[in-house]
């Protein structure tokens, strides 16, 4: 029998999945690409603000790749691993060049160069953008290259297919996936010598978020239940500025602040005058007063908490959970630059933000935690000499290029890229670094996947017996059957709402022991309700009810891990703020929260892993904060 050609499976067609597919196909390995929705409709399309990378202009202002790394590390409160962040930030300029070559319509200066904008966590302009829909443009650029490989027969797309479970052989190695066509409801196994999970974030676990409706986190939760570790699941980014809505919270991009937008509330409680009637002196620009250096550009976790607190003090607009984000004072040209995001506000609220300040509030936005992954750091002593037969070893200080371990989970052959892994952002993601990390994962670690697929652990997927694959298909069919036959009392959409409210209340902006313990109880209740489901759709075709109910079960399991991580981490770090432990405690918690699923007890087990800091020592995260008392303020203004 001829040896089967190695194949790679990529789950997810967002920026991470597409760039992985393109990179692997380019290396000469065939790719099967799975996505719940046509890849062009993936959540990455929503990103508005931009993508970070140092460039020549930034460099001449004194910025560097090293500083981009440093900002990422301090932004993440040092929970990120330094070698991958080093590598990502040093590759960033190449990534932008590549996207530019792909035809992404980046905004231009008058000389035709790529323009830059200011984003949170930095005092330098280093964010590239394409109008106010950068994610859309980047996704389309990569989608186009994917289509090109598809036309050449190197990438095979399975759109409207849902990943259900990783196939793991007797030696614990990943050899493929089980997936379901969400239209015909057919369930099938697919063989792959390496599997890349690029399934994005888990915003839907919080009910309403800024994410797309497909961002359930279920795919990650399934890998977790199949034995993959989660890393830092408690790290959830709440974006400071979103437009609260009935069906979802829509993002108001950070670029609104980057371009000069100001956040304020009336100084006087309950001042219910029209915002334009409130004079400058009567406005409390709390971010600017407390953080004179960074002002409205403090990192997101800080801005989020300050907005939350100001509302808790009753200073929110009309006493409600809302503050003003004001761009009315900006010049027309700047407003035009922001047109696309302003349109979103106008479209969904009916008010014109060019004339009247926007009303906004924080909302769940990004999943910093996710599948735990490993990497091979570059070691100058070990890796200086590169024999000609091993072209992969290149001198750098981050990762070892092409090493099969890079961004692999603890399950050999199973990788995690993009928002679904935990690697780059630590305890808070800097704005405009996510798009970068997704594409970096695909492009840089794609080679690792290709290398692994050609020398996989154990028996190649193509040679394993059918029985292994059939077993997993049967397991998934049984789950669907059980769900279809559920004639219990509880509607899955109502349970989801309950889950979302509880998770938002306990595990987002501010966490506290007693409330978390209550949350744990509540999750147990929700889990019990889930055992008594009522599925109202018995259709055998495009049964969204069954798909949703199945994902809900996985969201509940993932919520457990998130809750336990939040309870266990008795400190405050980045987006994880404990009102009962307000300090960062490095000697105890400068560690990754590694969570393993105990299948017998249906419970998460928490382990801790030290984080090495080979490049930058830990330091406090102040962003030039000053005490907001009047005397201190003057001092700050003078400096």
């Amino acid at each position, binding site marked *: 029998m001829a040896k089967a050609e190695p194949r790679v499976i990529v789950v997810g067609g967002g920026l991470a999945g597409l760039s992985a597919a393109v*990179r692997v196909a*380019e290396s000469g390995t065939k790719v099967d690409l799975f996505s719940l*929705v*046509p890849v*062009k*409709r*993936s*959540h990455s*399309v*929503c990103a508005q603000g931009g993508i970070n990378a140092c460039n020549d202009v930034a460099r001449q202002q004194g910025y560097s790749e090293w500083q981009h790394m440093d900002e990422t590390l301090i932004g993440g409160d040092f929970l990120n691993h330094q070698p991958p962040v080093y590598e990502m930030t040093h590759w960033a300029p*190449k990534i932008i*060049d*590549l996207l*530019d*070559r*792909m*035809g992404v*319509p*980046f*905004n*231009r*200066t*008058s000389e*035709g*160069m790529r323009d830059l904008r200011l984003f949170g966590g930095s005092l330098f302009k280093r964010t590239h953008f*394409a*109008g106010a*829909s950068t994610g*859309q*443009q980047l996704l389309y*650029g990569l989608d*186009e*290259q994917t*289509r*090109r490989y*598809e*036309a050449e027969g190197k990438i095979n797309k399975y759109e409207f297919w849902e990943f259900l479970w990783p196939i793991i052989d007797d030696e614990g190695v990943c050899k493929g996936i089980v997936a379901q066509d969400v*239209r015909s409801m057919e369930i099938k196994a697919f063989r792959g010598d390496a599997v890349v999970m690029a399934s994005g974030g888990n915003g839907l676990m919080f009910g309403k978020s800024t994410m*797309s*409706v*497909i961002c359930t986190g279920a795919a990650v939760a399934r890998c977790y239940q199949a034995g993959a570790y989660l890393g830092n699941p408690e790290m959830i980014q709440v974006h400071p500025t979103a437009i609260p*809505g*009935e*069906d*979802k919270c*829509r993002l108001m991009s950070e670029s609104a602040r980057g371009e000069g937008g100001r956040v304020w509330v009336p100084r006087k409680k309950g001042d219910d005058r029209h915002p334009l009637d409130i004079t400058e002196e009567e406005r409390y620009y709390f971010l600017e007063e407390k953080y004179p250096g960074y002002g409205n550009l403090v990192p997101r976790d800080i801005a989020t908490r300050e907005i939350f607190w100001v509302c808790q003090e009753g200073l929110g607009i009309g006493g409600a959970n809302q503050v003003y984000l004001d761009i009315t004072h900006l010049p027309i040209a700047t407003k035009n630059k922001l047109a696309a995001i302003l349109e*979103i506000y106008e*479209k*969904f609220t*009916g008010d014109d933000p060019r004339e009247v300040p926007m009303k906004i509030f924080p909302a769940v936005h990004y999943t910093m935690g996710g599948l735990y992954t490993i990497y091979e750091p570059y070691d100058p002593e070990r890796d200086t000499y590169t024999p000609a037969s091993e072209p992969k070893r290149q001198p750098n200080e981050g990762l070892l290029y092409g090493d099969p371990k890079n961004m692999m989970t603890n399950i050999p052959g199973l990788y995690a890229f993009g928002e679904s892994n935990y690697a780059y952002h630590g305890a808070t993601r800097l704005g405009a670094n996510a798009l970068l990390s997704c594409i970096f994962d695909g492009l840089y670690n794609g080679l690792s996947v290709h290398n692994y697929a050609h020398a996989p652990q154990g028996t190649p997927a193509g040679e394993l017996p059918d029985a292994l694959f059939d077993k997993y298909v049967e397991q998934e069919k049984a789950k669907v059957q059980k769900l279809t036959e559920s004639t219990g009392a509880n509607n899955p*959409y*109502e349970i989801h709402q309950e889950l979302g409210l509880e998770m938002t209340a306990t595990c987002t902006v501010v966490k506290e022991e007693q409330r978390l313990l209550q949350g744990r109880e509540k999750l147990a209740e929700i889990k019990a309700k889930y055992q008594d489901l009522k599925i*109202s*759709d*018995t*259709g055998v*075709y*495009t049964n*969204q*009810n069954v798909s949703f109910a199945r994902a809900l079960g996985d969201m509940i399991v993932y919520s457990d891990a998130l809750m336990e991580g939040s309870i266990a981490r008795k400190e405050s770090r980045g987006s994880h703020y404990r009102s009962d432990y307000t300090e960062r405690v490095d000697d105890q918690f400068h560690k990754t929260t590694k969570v393993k699923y105990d299948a017998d007890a249906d419970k998460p087990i928490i382990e801790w892993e030290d984080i090495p800091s080979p490049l930058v020592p830990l330091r406090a995260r102040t962003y030039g904060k000053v005490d907001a008392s009047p005397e201190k303020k003057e001092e700050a203004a003078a400096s």
Partner: protein
Amino acid sequence: MIAPNPDQKFLVRVKRQDGESQPAYWQEFEVPVRPSQNVISVLQYIAANPTTTDGKDVEPVVWDAGCLEEVCGACTMVINGRARQSCSALVPELLAEANGGPITLEPMTKFPVVRDLFVDRQRMFDNLIKVKGWVPIDGTHSLGAGPTESPEKQEERYAISRCMTCGCCLEACPQFTKDNDFLGAQAIAQAYYFNEHETGKKLKKERLDVLMGPGGVSDCGNAQNCVQVCPKEIPLTEAIGKAGRQLTVHAVKKFFTGS
């Protein structure tokens, strides 16, 4: 705005279809008025309360959605007779449009129905392959920056690059039918978009060959419907016109060089 009365309700009529080759039928649902309600939240309400106005428990309505902020293109359907995104279709406006209701929801008619309001728009993606909708880069290696581009050119391209493959333009086009092979405004505009990029241009001839063939630009009747319905305000007729001019030049060249 008037505060909504929690007891106030409105009617929604949904055209349903159990599968691709099944007959279509209508069902009516009663939905309570809520603040800042869009069609997605109406459908979410029906999913959680799948009971018709005549008290029958039915299977929840199937529909397609993603971003809920009018950028992914997934949720397009025919609402009150017009193709648009259900996430950005706000209930108060729809009620006004329908003189108080009922609001009608139907699947798009130019694509095969998968189930209920969910249609299969694969043809649009296939057309992007036909017109070679990509820039033929040499690979993903580090090869420096792309060509410089004037802000004016960037703006022109940016406007077209925002097409989210939603299908409104095709739904509205009198020339585009379920079974002919007209490429439609979306694919033609994309072909033009790539012809306007320094590197993308390298495939211009091949693209123009496709646009010159059956189902190409000459099938457009210039009815302008597409540009009126495009939610992203893509200058479609302008792009078709410019593609047409590129074609004329291409045809003349072809005639003289015989290539």
